[in-house]
C-alpha cells in the first residue's frame, strides 16, 4: 500500500518517549480482568441492595481499574508489537462495554432502549420497517437499528434484546479499533494509535451512554470507521485504493443516515471541518508541495470533498424521501439550547441545570469529573501552541481532527442548558476522536523540559482522572447503578408490575392509547405496545391527575377525539417527588412536588373513570370523558373494603 513516509511525523512524536512498565503477561491480564468484571458485578449487587454509595462506587472502580489497567499497559507498552497492541485495544474495548451490559443484561432499562426494543418487536410483528413509535416518534423514520436487530434475531434465534445488545457491543469494540487506525494514520505510530484508542474508549459517553441499545450507539461506530477509512484514503497516493476506501466509507455513510439523524449531522460537521482545513492548512506551510510530494494535499482535499459530497447527497435523499420530519424534530434542540445558554450567561434564575446536584457520587469522583475537562483544556493549549510552531510538518487531516476535537470544550457548556444537555452529551462521543489524536500527540511529543519518568507518571494519573471523571460526568447514579425502587427515574422506577400491567391491558383491550406518567409509560409502550400521550402546553394531559378537578373541556375533547381511552396511575407518585423532578415532562405544573393523594383518590369516584385493572401500586382506568359533569346512580359503598 502506498502511504506517505513516516519520516515527517516521526519528528512530531517519538513513540519511545513514554516509558511504561513492561507489558504484563497475557495470563495475568486475563486473570485480572476476570476479577475486575466479577468485582463490577459485586458493586452492582451492593448498589441494588441499597448499600452506601461510597461503598459500591469504590468497589466498582476497584473492579474497573483492575480490569482495564493491565490491558491498557499491554496496549501502550513500548515493547508490545503492533498486533499485540491491536488485540489489547480490542480487549480494552470489549471490557469497557461490560458495565453497561451488566447493568441490564436481560431487558431494556434506559429511556431510549425501551423505544428501540419496541420498534424491533413491532418490525418482527408486522414484517415491515417504518413502524410508528410511541416513545421516540422520530425512530419511525430511521429504521436501521430495528432492521439489523430483527435480522439478527431471525438468523440467530437469540432473544430480541440479546440480538440488539450483541450488535451494539460488537460495534462498540469495532469503533474503538477504528480509532486506533485513525490515530495511527494521523501520527504514524501504532503506539499513538493504541493511546488514542484508549483515550477515546474512556470518553464520557463510551462506558454507559454509547453502549445502550439505541441508534446512536450503532452509528457512532459507523462514524468512526468512516473517519478511519477517510484518514487512510487521505494518505493513500494510489488512486484506485483511495476510491475503494472512499466507496466503503460512503456505504457506511448510507447505513448511518438510515439509522440515526444526529450522527449524520455530526459527520457532516466533521467532514466540512476536515475539508476546510485541508483547503486552508497547506497555504500556511512555508514549502511547496513539489518539494515534498508525500505531503501532497491533493489526496486529502479529494478525500474529504468526495466524502462530504457523497454523504450530503445521501442525507438529503433520505431526509427528503423517507424522513421529512427530521428537521422539525431537531430544530427546537438547537434554538432552545442557545437561548437557554444565553439566559444562564445573563443569570436569569432557574433556566439552567445544576451539575452534580443532589448527586450521591463520592466527593473524589465529583472532583475527577470537574478535573477531567480542565485537564483536557490544558492539554489542548499545549497542542495549539505546538501545532502552530511545527505547522510545516503537519498533515491537514490530523490538524482537522484535532480542530474537530476542540468542539468538545464549548459543548461542555451546553450541558448546563436543559435543551442542550442531551445534544452536548451526544456530541462527546464524536468530538472525542479529536481529543484522542490530541492526547496521543501530547503523550508522545518529544520535550526536553519533562523527563520520561515524569511524563509516564503524569500519563498514568491522567488516565485514572479521565476514566473516573469522564464516567462520573456521563450519566447519573440511577442510570449507572441498579438500586432499590425509586420513583421518578427512567431506570429505577421500572418494575415487573408495570410490565405485566402493560401486557394485561394489551391482552384485554389490545394496543390502546394511554395517558400516564413519564416513567410508567416506558414499560407500557415497550411491553404492551400502547400509544402513550405526549403531554405539552398545548395538550396538557397531566390535568387528569395533576389537578384536583375534572380536566378542562378542551382537554377532554382532545382526549376523546384522539381516542386516549385509558389512564394508568402509579399511586407511588403521591408518596414522593419524582427523582427527575417531574411526572409529566418539563411543563408539569407540579414540578419537584409529589402528586397530591386526593387527586388520585378522586379518580375512584368520578363517573368518567372506571378502574378496570388494579395491582398494589398501579391503577388502570377506562376513560369516558363525555360523562364529565354527570354522576353515578349508586356510588360504591365499599362494603368489602377498598383496594
Amino acid at each position, binding site marked *: 500500500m502506498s502511504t506517505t513516509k513516516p519520516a515527517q511525523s516521526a519528528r512530531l512524536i517519538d513513540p519511545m518517549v513514554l516509558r511504561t512498565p513492561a507489558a504484563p503477561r*497475557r495470563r495475568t491480564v486475563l486473570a485480572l480482568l476476570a476479577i475486575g468484571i466479577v468485582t463490577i458485578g459485586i458493586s452492582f449487587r451492593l448498589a441494588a441492595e441499597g448499600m452506601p454509595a461510597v461503598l459500591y462506587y469504590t468497589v466498582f472502580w476497584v473492579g474497573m481499574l483492575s480490569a482495564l489497567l493491565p490491558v491498557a499497559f499491554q496496549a501502550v507498552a513500548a515493547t508490545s508489537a503492533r498486533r499485540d497492541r*491491536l488485540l489489547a485495544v480490542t480487549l480494552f474495548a470489549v471490557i469497557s462495554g461490560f458495565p453497561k451490559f451488566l447493568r441490564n443484561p436481560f431487558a431494556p432499562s434506559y429511556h431510549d432502549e425501551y423505544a428501540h426494543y419496541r420498534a424491533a418487536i413491532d418490525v418482527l410483528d408486522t414484517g415491515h420497517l417504518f413502524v410508528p413509535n410511541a416513545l421516540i416518534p422520530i425512530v419511525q423514520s430511521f429504521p436501521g437499528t430495528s432492521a439489523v436487530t430483527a435480522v439478527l434475531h431471525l*438468523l*440467530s434465534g437469540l432473544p430480541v434484546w440479546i440480538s440488539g445488545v450483541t450488535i451494539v457491543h460488537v460495534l462498540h469494540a469495532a469503533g474503538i479499533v477504528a480509532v486506533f487506525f485513525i490515530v495511527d494514520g494521523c501520527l504514524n505510530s501504532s503506539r499513538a494509535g493504541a493511546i488514542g484508542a484508549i483515550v477515546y474508549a474512556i470518553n464520557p459517553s463510551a462506558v454507559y451512554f454509547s453502549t445502550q441499545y439505541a441508534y446512536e450507539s450503532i452509528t457512532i461506530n459507523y462514524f468512526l470507521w468512516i473517519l478511519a477509512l477517510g484518514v487512510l484514503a487521505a494518505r493513500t497516493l494510489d488512486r484506485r485504493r483511495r476510491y475503494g476506501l472512499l466507496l*466503503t466509507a460512503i456505504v457506511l455513510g448510507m447505513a448511518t443516515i*438510515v439509522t440515526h439523524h444526529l450522527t449524520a449531522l455530526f459527520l457532516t460537521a466533521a467532514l466540512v471541518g476536515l475539508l476546510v482545513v485541508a483547503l486552508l492548512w497547506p497555504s500556511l506551510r512555508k514549502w511547496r508541495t513539489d518539494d515534498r510530494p508525500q505531503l501532497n494535499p491533493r489526496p486529502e482535499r479529494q478525500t474529504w470533498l468526495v466524502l462530504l459530497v457523497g454523504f450530503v447527497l445521501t442525507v438529503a435523499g433520505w431526509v427528503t424521501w423517507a424522513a421529512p420530519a427530521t428537521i422539525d424534530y431537531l430544530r427546537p434542540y438547537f434554538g432552545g439550547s442557545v437561548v437557554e445558554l444565553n439566559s444562564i450567561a445573563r443569570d436569569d434564575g432557574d433556566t439552567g441545570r445544576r451539575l452534580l446536584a443532589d448527586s450521591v457520587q463520592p466527593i473524589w469522583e465529583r472532583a475527577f469529573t470537574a478535573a477531567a475537562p480542565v485537564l483536557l483544556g490544558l492539554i489542548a493549549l499545549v497542542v495549539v501552541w505546538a501545532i502552530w510552531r511545527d505547522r510545516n510538518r503537519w498533515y491537514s487531516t490530523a490538524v482537522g481532527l484535532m480542530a474537530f476535537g476542540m468542539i468538545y470544550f464549548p459543548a461542555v457548556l451546553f450541558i448546563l442548558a436543559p435543551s442542550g444537555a442531551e445534544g452536548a452529551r451526544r456530541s462527546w462521543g464524536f468530538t472525542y476522536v479529536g481529543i484522542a489524536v490530541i492526547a496521543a500527540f501530547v503523550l508522545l511529543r518529544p520535550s526536553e523540559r519533562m523527563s520520561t519518568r515524569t511524563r509516564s507518571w503524569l500519563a498514568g494519573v491522567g488516565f485514572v482522572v479521565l476514566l473516573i471523571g469522564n464516567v462520573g460526568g456521563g450519566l447519573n447514579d440511577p442510570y449507572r447503578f441498579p438500586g432499590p425502587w425509586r420513583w421518578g427515574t427512567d431506570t429505577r422506577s421500572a418494575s415487573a408490575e408495570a410490565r405485566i400491567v402493560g401486557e394485561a391491558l394489551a391482552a384485554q383491550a389490545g394496543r390502546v392509547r394511554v395517558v400516564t406518567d413519564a416513567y410508567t409509560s416506558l414499560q407500557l409502550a415497550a411491553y404492551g405496545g400502547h400509544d402513550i400521550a405526549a403531554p405539552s402546553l398545548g395538550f396538557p394531559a397531566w390535568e387528569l391527575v395533576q389537578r384536583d378537578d375534572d380536566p378542562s373541556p378542551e382537554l377532554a375533547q382532545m382526549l376523546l377525539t384522539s381516542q386516549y381511552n385509558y389512564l394508568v396511575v402509579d399511586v407511588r407518585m403521591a408518596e414522593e417527588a419524582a427523582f427527575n423532578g417531574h411526572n409529566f415532562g418539563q411543563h408539569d405544573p407540579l414540578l419537584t412536588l409529589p402528586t397530591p393523594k386526593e387527586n388520585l383518590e378522586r379518580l375512584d369516584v368520578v363517573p368518567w373513570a372506571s378502574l378496570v385493572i*388494579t395491582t*398494589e401500586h398501579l391503577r388502570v382506568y377506562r376513560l369516558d370523558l363525555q360523562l364529565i359533569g354527570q354522576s*353515578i*346512580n349508586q356510588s360504591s359503598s365499599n362494603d368489602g373494603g377498598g383496594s
Partner: protein
Amino acid sequence: MRGNRVAPVAPAKWAVYSLIAVLISAAIVQFVPFVWLTAPAAGVLVWIGGSALASLLLGNHQRGRVFHGVLGLVLGIVVMLIVGLFLHYSGRGISHTEVAGTMSFVCAAMVLAAVVFRREAIGAGFLPMRDVIAAVLAATVLVLAGSIAVAIQDRPVEQFEVLSFTDPAVASSIEERQVDAGAQVFVSWELHSFGYEVKQVPWSQIRLGDDQTTKVDVTSVPSVADSDSGFRGSARVRAPETPGAARIEVTVRFVGPTGEPIERQVFMAVYVR
C-alpha cells in the same frame, strides 16, 4: 504494506473455505432450531458476508488482517441492514425464511463477486492460529466472568398480583356497556399473582346497584409462565331499575405471599337504559 506480515490467503482457497462456511451456516440458520447452533452460525454468516464485502470494496487487507476482520464485522452488520431494507421495500416482509434465504444468497454472491472482481490475494480476516487461540481464550474468560457477575446480581423476583375485569372490561364504547333496567348482567374477573402462588380466595363480592353477590364461583387459573398463577370468578348480577350511569364493583380478598389477607377492587361504569 503495514500490518502483521502474514501471507495472504490465495483467492481460490479463500473462496472455497468461505463458500463452504456460508452454505453450512445457511443450512443451520434455516433449518436447525437450537439457538446454541444457530447463533454461532449466524455470526459466521454475517462475518463472512461483511468480509467478502470488504474484500470486494477494498481488495487486499490493506492494514493487516485485524483491520480487515473488524471492518468485516462492521460491514456484516451493514449487510444485515441492506437485507432488512430489501425485504421491506420488495414487499416480501421480514420473516425467518426470507431473512435466512436472502442473507445466505447475498453472502454467497459477495464471496463469488470478491473472487471474480478482486483477483489479488484476499485476507478476509483469517487470523493466524495463535491469535485465534488467544481470542478464544479471552472470550472464554470474559464469558465466564460475565456469567458470574450476572449471577451475583440475581435477586428475588417481585411479588405482586393483577386483578382485572375480563368481561365487560373489553367493551370499548359506552354503547357496548349499556344494559336494560333490571336485566341480568354477566360479570367475571381474573386475578393473577406473580412471584408467588395464590392458595386461596376465601371471599369475593360483586355489586351492581342494589344486587350484591358474594362467594361467587371461583376456579383456579393454571400456571402459564414464570410464577404466574391465579383465580377466576364470575357471577350474574341484576341491573338497577333506574336508568342512568351505574357501577359494577368487584372486590376480591385473597391470601398473600406471607399468609396475610389482601383485598383488591375494580369497578366499571355501565349504563342502564
